[in-house]
Each structure stands twice: as C-alpha cells, then as structure tokens.
C-alpha cells in the first residue's frame, strides 16, 4: 500500500488551527470557533493538526471567554507534557553515557525547541529524542547504544547512512526511540566531514544534564529545511516552530551567519518560500536585510530540482525505472556539494555503486528494475 504524503504548507483548516495556536488572544477564540465549524473535534482529524493541540490549548487559555472543548485540550496537553518529560529524562541518561566516553552531544529538534522557542515543556509533541554526535564519533556512539540495549531500527543501513545519511533510528524494548544524528539534516554534509554546527553550538541543559543545542540561527535553518518537504505526517509544525523561534530568540539569531549557512547548504529556495509564507500569513517580521540578501543568492538547478521534488507528491510514479533513478539522483543531489554536471554524474555513479554494494552497470540497472 502506498503512503499518503502531506504538503508542508497547510490546507485551509490547518491554517485556521495554526492561527488559533499562534495569533494574539483577541483573535484566537474566533479562529477556534471557525475551525470547529469546519472540523468535528470529536471525530477524526489529521495527525498534523492533532500535534498542534497542546499549543492551541495554551494559546486559548489566554482568552477570557468560555472555550469549547478546553478540558479535552487540556487532556492532550497533560499527556504530552508527561511523554515529553519522560523523553527528556531518557535523553539525559544517554547524554550522560556519551559524556563518560567523551562523546560530545547536541540536542536537536523537539527538546531544544521546547526550551528555546516555546519555553514550555508540554506544547511541542515529540515521538523520539534527537541527539547529534560528531561524525567521527558516530560509530562509537552506536556501539555504546547497542551495549545499553538500544537496537538500530535498520541495522543494514548503518554503513550507507554514515556515508550518505544524517542519522540512525534506535529503539529500546520499552518503546523509547532515539534518533542518533551526525548531521542535523540531509543537506548538511560536506564530503562526510564534520559540519561546522559545533563551533556555534550553545549550552543546553537536558533534564539536569549539561549538553548543547544548535545556535538559534542553525535551529531555525534545521526547522525549515527539515520541515519543508512532503511527509506521511503533515509536517506543518515547521510553522509554529519557526514563528516561536523567531519571536522568542529574535535577538539571538545571527542573521548574517544564517544567510551564510543558507547559501552554503544550498537551501535558499526553501528558506525564501518559508519566509514568504510566514510573512504573508502570520505577519512575521523578518529583517529587511535578510530578505534582500536571500534574494541575491543564486539558486542552482540542483537546488531547484531538490526543492520541487520535496514539494511534490508523486509516489505513484516511483515504481517506474527512470523515475526511480531520478529520485535517487535527487537524493544524491540533496546531500552532495559537487558542482557541475560532469562531476555530479560521476558522483552519482559512485553513489549508485555504493548503494548497490559495488554492482556493475548492468547489475545496477537490473537491481533497480526489479526492486519494489
């Protein structure tokens, strides 16, 4: 069965719910009423919207009027608060283990955003904890996890992911999940060398244990780059993540560095589209100089191909051989820093050879023709 993928930009109902979660108190009761006129809160609605409910609850609490379903919203918040606290606690134990082996850590995504962007431990649902270690310590970190009863979700992919991926998912018998990163996002790879996120990392305490977080500029970049792509779970939470981060860390975002990173990782198109949407729909204030600098970044054909692919829901087409090959080419383009068509073609060939464990040309064609 094919997966149903969802757009990173919200539909009408999701946008109204986002406004309920993010707009000032004077307007949110009206948006909540409007959303309830369109969607039956007590029947089915999409999981992307469900994940916004703790934030919706906290924003609706600021209203002075009576709010329909406020107690049910509180139930969602409380359950999420408990889940998050457990994840923070388990995450802190892993950080301690890594520290004992002198493995540096950066806490990514939900846990860091809860602290820096939302300043609330219960509003941002998380399904796992994301911990980044330096690339050259990733293998050691994985060994340590395995010795602590964590199992890699796709053991066979370790070698491939170390070369072309950004992370590995680990799971424990009791259900806890951990995403062990060595790069914060796919685009942030440079010939497998350690990226520069470590130099700008800031101190962050996870459940009483000292670790680090990406600096706010890198955090914002990670939220947008990771969020703007079709996903089985509607990935609309990049919107509250970005809005809250920009509002609450505005003075700490080094915008010049942000632009440099955007250029370096060839994600300017994603960032431009994200900022245009946030400004138009949520009246978010982005410094004029940032807009101007973004417009001056030349968007390469590779970046355009990768962006338009991330914005398309064309899973039906992937069964066909050439579409499969094209998808693989885009996966390669997303993470390579090779420039020029010839270098990219050579790089892509090496990528395919690695992916198919060194098969020759005919074997590669046959492999992808029969592969489901």
């Amino acid at each position, binding site marked *: 069965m094919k997966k149903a993928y969802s757009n990173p930009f919200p539909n009408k109902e999701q946008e109204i719910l986002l406004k309920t979660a993010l707009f000032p108190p004077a307007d949110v009761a009206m948006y909540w009423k409007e959303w309830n006129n369109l969607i039956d809160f007590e029947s089915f609605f999409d999981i992307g919207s469900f994940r916004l409910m703790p934030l919706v609850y906290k924003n609706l609490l600021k209203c002075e009027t009576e709010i329909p379903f406020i107690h049910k919203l509180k139930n969602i918040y409380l*359950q999420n608060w408990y889940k998050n606290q457990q994840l923070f*606690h388990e995450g802190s134990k892993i950080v301690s283990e890594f520290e004992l082996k002198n493995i540096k850590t950066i806490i990514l995504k939900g846990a860091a955003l809860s602290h820096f962007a939302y300043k609330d431990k219960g509003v941002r649902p998380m399904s796992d904890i994301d911990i980044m270690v330096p690339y050259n310590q990733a293998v050691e970190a994985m060994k340590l996890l395995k010795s602590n009863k964590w199992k890699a979700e796709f053991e066979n992919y370790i070698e491939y992911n170390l070369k072309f991926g950004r992370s590995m998912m680990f799971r424990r018998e009791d259900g806890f999940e951990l995403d062990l990163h060595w790069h914060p996002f796919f685009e942030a790879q440079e010939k497998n060398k350690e990226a520069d996120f470590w130099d700008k990392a800031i101190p962050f305490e996870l459940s009483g244990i000292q670790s680090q977080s990406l600096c706010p500029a890198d955090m914002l970049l990670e939220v947008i780059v990771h969020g703007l792509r079709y996903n089985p779970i509607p990935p609309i939470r990049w919107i509250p993540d970005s809005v809250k981060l920009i509002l609450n860390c505005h003075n700490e975002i080094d915008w010049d560095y942000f632009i440099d990173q955007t250029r370096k990782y060839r994600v300017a198109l994603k960032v431009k589209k994200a900022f245009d949407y946030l400004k138009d729909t949520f009246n978010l204030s982005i410094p004029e100089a940032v807009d101007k600098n973004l417009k001056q970044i030349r968007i390469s054909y590779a970046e355009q191909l990768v962006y338009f692919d991330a914005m398309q829901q064309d899973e039906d087409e992937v069964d066909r051989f050439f579409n499969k090959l094209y998808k693989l080419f885009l996966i390669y383009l997303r993470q390579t820093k090779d420039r020029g068509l010839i270098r990219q073609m050579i790089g892509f060939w090496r990528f395919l050879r690695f992916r198919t464990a060194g098969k020759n040309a005919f074997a590669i064609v046959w492999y992808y023709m029969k592969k489901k």
Partner: protein
Amino acid sequence: MRYKINYPHIVHDTIEDETILINLKNGNYYNIENSGTVLWDIIEKGGDVNDSCDLIAKKFKLAPEKIKNDIEIFISNLLMENLLVPLNEKDISSFEIKEMEVLINEKMKKYAAPVINKYSDMRDALMLDPIHEVDERGWPTMNEDLMFREEAENELNPDHSN
C-alpha cells in the same frame, strides 16, 4: 517547618489551578488540587508551612487546628512519595511572611483541603485517547465506560487479562 522539592528526580509545572508532577525515578504522576497548588508554590519558594497555616486560617476565618491538620496530612503524603525533603536549618530562605500573605491572598480564592492524587499505571495512561477515553476528572483518569468495557472483556477472555 520548611521543605524543598526533591530535585532532580521531580519535575513539576502548574497548569490552570492544578500542579502536575512526575517522580522520574519511578515514573509516577501526581496532581495537586485545591489549596495544595498554592502550598506547593510556597514550599518551592522556601516558605515555612507553619506560617502558611496561620495566614490561611486568618484569611478564611477557620480554626487554625483544622488547617494545620489538613496541611500535615498533605505534607506527610508528599514526603511519603519522596516529592519533598526537609530543608536544613542552615538553608536560608528569602521568602518572607509578607510575600507569602500576598501569594495566598492572590491565588487562594477559597479554602478546600489540599489534595494530592497519585497515578502509577502510566503505561495505560499514555495509550489513552485523550479526546474520547478520559474521565471528566481529566487525564490520566480513564472514563468509566471504557473501564467497564475492559473489565467485561477481561471476564469474557480471562486468558487475555493482565
């Protein structure tokens, strides 16, 4: 008598008029209701609970013995669950009686004995659908219909009961 929160094992927050807590050592979840939320706030700030008894009795014109008794039961429950530990005499608190009085006047609108509820079966609570399967008392209490349904299913299929 002064106490302090048993950090780092305890995490807590206050939502509306309810204080929620987790003992991270065992995963138990608690909620504190009624005047307990204000008392928890006083304890966190390092206030003397004996002083709070007098102030509450004065504000609500109640017998100090009754308030003292209620608060003693509440504190003994918190101590029994290792949520608090006694503060040493040498630990100085900057939280003064005047500040405590302001806090009580602002936040305690009526007096009801402080209550702490304990939930230890959190695995099931995490599986609950928070929109449809939670009791009016709020998460993590399962609604009774669901509880009866589960009991009936367990009676019909004893091999599958936990």
